[in-house]
């Protein structure tokens, strides 16, 4: 298919909006041709996952655009960087890396992006409407904006998300198009006990299974409670996008494009139906831990994706009046921390020993104690990336188990939750 551009889009290549936008448009056109798009689509917002320092090439790219006068053309939020800019001492990085990571984050702010530095912009007021065209990066944010909000994005990543933000355009293909959003696989969770489905600890395990077994296909999950929360869907999507390339799933009766199963499949007969069994869930649960049960716990980390206010309020109830014996990290957006300070919860959490990390998280930059050991978490995403990114062994459990273990300094779990 030949890519057709509008007069305005061609003028961007010619430099009508400056050198940086011209460069962004050239890259966007190359990318659109690579995926075979016939045209570009106007977007309403962008979420840039290009702030994390992988090396100095990423800094050079961002500064080339910023120095060339680049300005974002749509509302743009920023994903995490490699530094906690509000608490710089919490990240252990050398002087060069610290300086370059800072320059990379600053360059995107200079282009007019909002310094949100969070993987969950949807928790701090950035909520695209159903059907809205957007260009979002970062795998959990992509899954959430497509699935839970019903806005439309493809899987954007480093560089292309920024080019979309500067030009206000994205290649019209994939999940931007209605016809590519139909569920092709039905996942039947109706036999899972309702007590288990009511618990937060269920959702990362379901997501881990979904990513491994459904991958790039689009699932319609039936049999989940109508009261399934946004935090639970967030955890499901983040885990699914860690173990597989899941960018969109539907939950019938819950998510916006799935009022009914028929709506989720666009009236077509699904390619296959899979009934969830206890064995499938136990397999995924086992995969989320590399450390043995009952042993020591050296640190606890929560907040991947970044913790919401609701999750913090739950944590406050669990830690109030208790003292955590091992380092306990809760990662969140600076905007969420501000709200916690205002309502007095930040103080309660710090008194108990919770370290609140903002702008970044513990699996993308060195924050955990260098001594290593066993990291306990309630996050499917931390459990997936923890061993390769931090060197820690991981232990997966509920938020309640994480707090109890942090108080005791050894792993406490509730296996009876999984009895089925």
């Amino acid at each position: 298919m030949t890519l057709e551009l509008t007069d305005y889009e061609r003028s961007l290549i010619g430099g009508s909006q400056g050198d940086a936008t011209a460069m962004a448009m050239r890259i966007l056109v190359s990318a659109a041709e690579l995926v075979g798009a016939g045209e570009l689509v106007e977007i309403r917002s962008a979420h840039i996952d290009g702030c994390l320092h992988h090396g100095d090439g990423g800094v050079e790219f961002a500064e080339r655009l910023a120095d060339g006068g680049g300005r974002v053309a749509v509302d743009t939020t920023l994903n995490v960087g490699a530094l906690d800019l509000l608490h710089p001492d919490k990240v252990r990085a050398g002087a060069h890396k610290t300086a370059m990571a800072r320059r990379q984050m600053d360059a995107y702010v200079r282009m007019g992006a909002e310094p949100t530095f969070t993987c969950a912009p949807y928790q701090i007021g950035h909520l695209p409407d159903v059907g809205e065209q957007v260009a979002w990066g970062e795998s959990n944010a992509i899954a959430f904006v497509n699935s839970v909000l019903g806005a439309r994005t493809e899987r954007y990543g480093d560089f292309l998300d920024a080019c979309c933000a500067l030009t206000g355009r994205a290649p019209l293909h994939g999940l931007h198009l209605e016809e590519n959003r139909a569920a092709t696989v039905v996942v039947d969770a109706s036999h899972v006990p309702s007590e288990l489905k009511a618990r937060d600890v269920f959702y990362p395990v379901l997501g881990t299974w979904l990513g491994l077994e459904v991958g790039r296909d689009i699932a319609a999950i039936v049999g989940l409670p109508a009261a399934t929360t946004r935090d639970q869907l967030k955890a499901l999507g983040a885990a699914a996008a860690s173990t597989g390339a899941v960018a969109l799933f539907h939950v019938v009766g819950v998510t916006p494009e799935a009022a009914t199963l028929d709506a989720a499949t666009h009236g077509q007969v699904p390619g296959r139906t899979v009934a969830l069994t206890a064995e499938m869930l136990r397999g995924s649960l086992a995969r989320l831990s590399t450390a043995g049960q009952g042993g020591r716990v050296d640190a606890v980390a929560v907040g991947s994706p970044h913790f919401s206010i609701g999750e913090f309020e739950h944590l406050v109830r669990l830690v109030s009046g208790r003292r955590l014996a091992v380092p306990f990290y809760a990662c969140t957006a600076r905007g969420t921390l501000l709200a916690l300070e205002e309502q007095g919860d930040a103080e309660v959490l710090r008194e108990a020993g919770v370290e609140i990390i903002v702008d970044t998280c513990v699996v993308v930059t060195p924050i955990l104690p260098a001594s290593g050991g066993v990291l306990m978490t309630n996050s499917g995403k931390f459990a997936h990336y923890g061993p390769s990114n931090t060197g820690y062994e991981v232990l997966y459990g509920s938020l309640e188990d994480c707090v109890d273990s942090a108080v005791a300094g050894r792993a406490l779990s509730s296996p009876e939750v999984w009895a089925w």
Partner: protein
Amino acid sequence: MGLVAGRVLVAGEGRGPLLRLDEPISFWGGVDPVSGTIADPRHANFGTSIAGTVLAVPSAVGSSSSSAIMLELLREGTAPAAILLGHADAILSLGVIVGEELGYAGIPILEMPVGELVSFPQGVQLHVSPEGIVTQASS
């Protein structure tokens, strides 16, 4: 000698020894951007350097941050001389396109049935032309 044609994803010319991987690879978390060696201990070719090779892989998988790793490899001079992919991948290609915008030397990326490369022995010097033709290089 044998000749195989691929679909050009990123045009360019490259020359180097064939490194054929049987497993897919994720550049992010799978390749060290400074040394150009395969850094995933679970990969069958763990520790092998991809720098300067004509790298043939069934597919690139994993995070979209792989384009950032591709850019760093070009910047460090530790990138492959060419990449032959069994399945087209926009993410690695994007890393090269961005690198060329920044003035780094680019590399060709082709999509081709990598099974057709079995007639070439591992390590043989290959040449990739800007038109997407892979031939054994005269040494």
